[in-house]
């Protein structure tokens, strides 16, 4: 294939170096930029030589963390990554997930281990190939096919995304999340969405590349409500995109948009139904062992726990609920028995229980994700992580920390969420390239759960902070800003940060934390996610913001289109709500995007904020938050860890359910539990 040729249409330039600018075509795959990661120097040297002999441009690296930072610094500096599985500093699969989420590059795994389960893990994590050592040069000669395939795939996704509205020119950037339902629906979606998001973003920057940008469909709260109503009207089983489209009667909306959104919605519902069982467990266990959980989780995802821990501590405030949610997740380890029961009360969400179960499950998953964080160089990290790691106390401490150092905590949480969100974010939100990669992580707990959880956690934390301090609220606004600023920082996190709003939620949290001080509510500056978080926080229901944010954040990068990233089933949905708010790139305050804006009234979340961008939203959020926290907000925040996407969804739904009126406000209404036909 000559994709390399500059004439290739639609090749998303973001991910590859063979953009139209490159003169690769003739010599493709000559000059393919490969990053090789292996802690074994012998293998590394051999691979380097082999790849050079294939006329590829090789960069070798013996540590996963270095590889990640290399990739982050130079987003488009590589075309493909080859990584070993067994590495001392970071598991190869984690690295794979990270790369998938953040950079959306094809990754090839290799190992002397040829046992089926390991190879299977490679597949589920989204590896493009799995090579058994010793690697022969012939095997390396053909790795370019993965790059080409990926590009094509992305391109296609973009194109399909809005089949109706898009023009060919600009698809690529809009990776159609919708289109990619493969593997775990989420994965594909995320990947696509993420990719798209990124591409879109890039496209924006590069005018010439994406000449026609298809307007991304943002699933605002209202739109989502309409959607949900239509679905309910038809009956969840009978709801087909065509009919839904007709019922909704929204001009400019295509059947494809609805189809992808429906898919996400379905996944979301499925997730919710699975949640209810665990809640009870969570409640009990949670309180009992914050430490335990903490420890358990910490090992996995120190971050998650911490988030949870932090969450746990805040029970009094309503954080408890959040925590419970979050803990619920970690509770899987059971440690975090955040008093779900208590929290639930706070939240008055029956869903919260549900959330936990999921959380728990997801927690585990999320845990995994959290680990990813380790690899991620976050700004906050060391301290925050450290603070997070303290079991039980940390919870308390966390809370305190959260309050006091909301920034830090948030960042931690954010961080935590990050890993998770990544998964999640990738899935849905980001169209960014990375999303696709996450397949595995996302799947697992919805791997995204991690994100949602994380997000939640963050939100939770943020909330906590807010709740207690309520600075956050303003911070939320500031968060928004943060996101903007942080964007850059977050970039590494990408997914959560923001490129998509969804991601942002987690990121935003982080950002928020950092910037709490700033309280500049810039509103969505660009980080739609920030809003999301706030919004979500406010809304007990929207807690899924983790998901949402994730979804939205990813895209976001200020793209209102975040919603477009429907890829992520639950998350995206969330995002959409959120992203829509963000989208506007900035101040989207539009509440529609962020259902979570707890505009203060649960029932009516009407997005009062609609207009005012974050600031107003932030304010509302504050108000809401204060109220909300006890309920869902915290839960949602704490869930981050647990949340895989499912959790978020469930939480989300729960919140919505409990909130009742949620529907109105945020696009997520549809997800409110009570509405769910499930």
């Amino acid at each position, binding site marked *: 294939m000559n994709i390399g040729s500059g004439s290739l249409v639609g090749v998303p330039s973001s991910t590859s170096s063979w953009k139209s600018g490159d003169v690769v075509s003739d010599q493709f795959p000559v000059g393919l930029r490969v990053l090789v990661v292996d802690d*074994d120097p*012998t*293998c590394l040297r051999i691979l380097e030589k082999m790849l050079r002999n294939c006329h590829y441009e090789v960069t070798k690296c013996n540590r996963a963390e270095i590889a990640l930072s290399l990739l982050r610094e130079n987003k488009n500096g590589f075309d493909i990554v080859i990584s*070993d599985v*067994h590495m*001392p500093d970071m598991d190869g699969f984690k690295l794979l997930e990270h790369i998938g989420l953040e950079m959306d590059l094809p990754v090839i795994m290799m190992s*002397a*281990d040829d046992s089926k389960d390991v190879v299977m893990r490679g597949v589920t994590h989204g590896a493009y190939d799995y090579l058994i*050592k010793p690697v022969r040069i012939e095997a390396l000669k053909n790795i370019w096919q993965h790059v080409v395939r990926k590009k094509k795939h992305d391109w296609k996704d973009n194109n399909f995304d809005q089949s109706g509205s898009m023009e060919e020119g600009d698809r690529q950037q809009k990776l159609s999340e919708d289109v990619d339902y493969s593997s775990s629906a989420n994965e594909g979606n995320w990947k696509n969405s993420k990719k798209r998001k990124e591409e879109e973003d890039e496209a924006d920057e590069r005018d010439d590349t994406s000449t026609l940008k298809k307007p991304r469909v943002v699933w605002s709260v209202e739109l989502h409500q309409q959607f949900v109503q239509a679905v309910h009207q038809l009956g969840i089983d009978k709801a087909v995109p065509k009919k839904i489209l007709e019922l909704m009667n929204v001009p400019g909306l295509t059947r494809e948009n609805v189809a992808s959104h429906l898919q996400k919605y379905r996944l979301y519902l499925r997730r919710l139904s699975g949640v209810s069982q665990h809640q009870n467990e969570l409640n009990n266990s949670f309180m009992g062992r914050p430490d335990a959980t903490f420890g358990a989780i910490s090992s996995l995802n120190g971050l998650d726990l911490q988030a949870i821990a932090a969450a746990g501590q805040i029970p009094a405030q309503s954080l408890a609920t959040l925590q419970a949610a979050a803990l619920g997740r970690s509770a899987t380890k059971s440690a975090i028995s955040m008093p779900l029961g208590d929290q639930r009360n706070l939240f008055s969400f029956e869903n919260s229980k549900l959330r936990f179960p999921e959380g728990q499950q997801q927690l585990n998953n999320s845990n995994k994700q959290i680990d990813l964080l380790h690899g991620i160089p976050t700004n906050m990290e060391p301290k925050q992580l450290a603070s997070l790691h303290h079991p039980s106390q940390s919870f308390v401490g966390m809370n305190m920390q959260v309050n006091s150092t909301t920034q830090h905590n948030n960042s931690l949480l954010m961080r935590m969420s990050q890993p998770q969100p990544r998964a999640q974010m990738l899935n849905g939100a980001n169209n960014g390239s990375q999303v696709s990669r996450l397949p595995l992580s996302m799947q697992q707990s919805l791997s995204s759960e991690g994100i949602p959880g994380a997000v939640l956690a963050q939100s939770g934390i943020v909330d906590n902070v807010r709740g207690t301090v309520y600075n956050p609220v303003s911070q939320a606004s500031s968060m928004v800003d943060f996101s903007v600023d942080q964007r850059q920082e977050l970039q590494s996190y990408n997914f959560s940060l923001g490129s998509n709003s969804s991601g942002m939620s987690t990121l935003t949290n982080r950002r928020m934390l950092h910037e709490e001080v700033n309280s500049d509510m810039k509103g969505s500056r660009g980080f739609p996610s920030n809003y999301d978080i706030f919004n979500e926080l406010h809304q007990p229901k929207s807690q899924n913001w983790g998901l949402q944010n994730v979804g939205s954040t990813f895209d976001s990068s200020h793209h209102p289109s975040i919603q477009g990233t429907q890829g992520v089933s639950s998350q995206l949905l969330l995002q959409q709500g959120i992203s829509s708010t963000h989208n506007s790139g900035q101040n989207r305050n539009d509440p529609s995007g962020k259902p979570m804006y707890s505009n203060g009234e649960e029932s009516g979340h009407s997005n009062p904020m609609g207009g005012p961008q974050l600031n107003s939203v932030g304010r509302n959020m504050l108000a809401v938050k204060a109220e909300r926290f006890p309920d869902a907000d915290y839960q949602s925040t704490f869930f981050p860890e647990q949340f895989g996407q499912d959790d978020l969804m469930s939480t989300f739904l729960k919140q919505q359910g409990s909130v009742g009126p949620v529907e109105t406000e945020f696009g997520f209404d549809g997800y409110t539990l009570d509405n769910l036909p499930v």
Partner: protein
Amino acid sequence: MERNNHLRRQVANLRQSLFDQGYLDDQFIELEELQDDANPNFVEEIVTLFYKDSARLIHSIDQALEKQPLDFTKLDNYMHQFKGSSSSIGAKKVKIECTQFSEYWRAGNVEGCKRTFQQLKREYVVLRKKLEVYFQSARQAGPTETMSCRPN
């Protein structure tokens, strides 16, 4: 020169015997093929690098096997890494021992693992000696033709 030709023949024989006796496999040939004018001593460099790096790994595995209780994850990782690098240089017998080790490992036969590991170390040392002789002869005979098995 005669002497040179003689030396070259010797080197070629040495090389062939390593394959015949099962010390080396095709992967070694892959390495030889990577050698070129820009990297005339590539194979020797790689082998040297392998032995240097794996010494540390062998030591780690030794320690890990002595620890009570056994750290399964670590051992597993070490072994996979060792297998990966030894197979990358074409160390056939060593690789066979690694595989045997993995089998005992999976079966939970710790004693079997320890025994196999001792055997593995022996093979590892034997191969090193043989390769040292080989490389030395090759250097003496002249760099260009000796190492490659490429039909020139």
